[in-house]
């Protein structure tokens, strides 16, 4: 808990940073029961853009971590991702991913669902989830 204030400061700095100037170390994680061991970011992007339903994406609420993930892994901004999901939701093809407010909550959701895939700050990783991609 001691580093929470630092994280908060970093988050604020990141919120105003342009592009990748301020990068949180971020990893893509799955449930330990998931047989996958590693993944390219293009593959991970397919789940978060609803192009594959093999794994269930777990999302963050709006914030710097999510924007960074969108930019680096999905190569899109928040409005574009929203438009992509609108196409899927309003054609009954998929339901939008559940959103959680912190890496701890995303980690908990991934640990609870063998099919889940999520992304969290690297500092939040523990043995309840398995890292399959480090976001560069």
């Amino acid at each position, binding site marked *: 808990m001691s580093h929470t204030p630092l994280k908060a400061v970093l988050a604020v700095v990141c919120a105003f940073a342009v592009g990748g100037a301020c990068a949180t170390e971020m990893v893509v994680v799955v449930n330990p029961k998931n047989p996958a061991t590693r993944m*390219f970011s*293009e593959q991970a992007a*397919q789940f978060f853009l609803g192009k*594959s339903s093999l794994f269930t994406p777990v999302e963050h609420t709006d914030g710097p971590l999510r924007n960074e993930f969108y930019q680096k892994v999905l190569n*899109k901004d928040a409005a574009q991702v929203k438009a992509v999901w*609108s*196409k899927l939701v*309003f054609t009954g093809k998929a*339901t939008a991913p559940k959103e959680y407010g912190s890496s701890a909550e995303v980690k908990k959701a991934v640990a609870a669902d063998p099919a889940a895939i999520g992304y969290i700050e690297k500092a939040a990783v523990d043995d309840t989830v398995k890292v399959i991609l480090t976001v560069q």
Partner: protein
Amino acid sequence: MERYKRTAVALSIAAGFAGGAQAQEGGPQVSISGFGTVAMTATDTSDAEFARPNQQSGVGTTPRTGPDSNFGIQSTFKFTDSVSATVQGLVRKNASDYFGAELPWAFLKVKANEDVSFRVGRTGMPVYMISDFRNVGYANTMIRPPAEVYRQVNGGSLDGGDLTYQHTFGESTLTAQFGLGTAHNKLVNGARIEFSRATALHVLWENGPLTLRFGRADATFSMKDNPAVDGLLASLVKAGFAQAARDYSITDVKGSFTSVGAIYDPGNFIVQGEYAVRRTGTRVVMDTSSWYAMFGYRYGKFTPYYYHGNIKQDNARTYAGVPAVGPLKPLAAALDFLGKAGIQSANALGLRWDFASSAALKVQVDRISPKDGAGAFVNAKPTFTGPATVYAVGVDFVF
């Protein structure tokens, strides 16, 4: 009042259902979502009205909300990981002169395995590349579906079932959807069009920024409650023009619609285009080909875009089967009139501004040039030949 009541009832179907289900402990997981567009549209002419396909009246120089506004609400009930139900209600101006409610989606979906799913009930008929989400303004760059291509087949709800195969090959995803069923659509003059047997194949190949699409729809259709055409056909038979009556038949006609499309969306710009061909066995529904291309460039939250669309008629616009002489003149004129498709080309400039996280403002100006008639404009004065400019501003939202 009746119409408003109907609207309210239809809209509450989705929401009301959901409320009941949520109250149940351990019942299905329910999600409710909605979309809509609030828009004002106007033109620079009072000699004709601009309307979307299958709208009875449109707009002239006085701005109106009718052509481009709509509202939809959807509930999805997830019973298990593989079984779900979806209901969508939609309010818009279609066929009649007021905002009316429709039920475009109501289906049960069963996921058989990772790749295959079935749907039974009422689903969208994927005639076009963006058929399924053409009413969701937020999901599209432009303010409205490209009219030149999207007016060729109206309606689009299939009562029946479909099978979808979706598989990921490395970084590519293939989606193939095949649907079979019946469909019926109201037309503007009180008539109906009934598809007694319709099939629709929709194949998508996606790789990163690139989407390629092929579509083919076939149907046997009949036009019902169309006294004008029925009367004309009876006159033809009476006057001994049996072949003409067959050429203009509106009963059990075969038709097909073949289309290809592509989207390239690497991030900072977007290119989208479609080419589509309609073929039918009746001169009342003309053979046409159409295409459009759109280019948009993203400057952060602003996406200016340019659009060009064109539709042409492939069969003869005049009919030689009944000579335009003496007392036959009116009959021949009526047949010529009935056999002419509204053809036109259009150029449009627009701007999409993603000003909030779930809302976008759009401004679009279309310059539409009808050819040999009034094109897709409705209630046109006989002297109207265009071109005309259409202005629209709207806010799309999702929730």
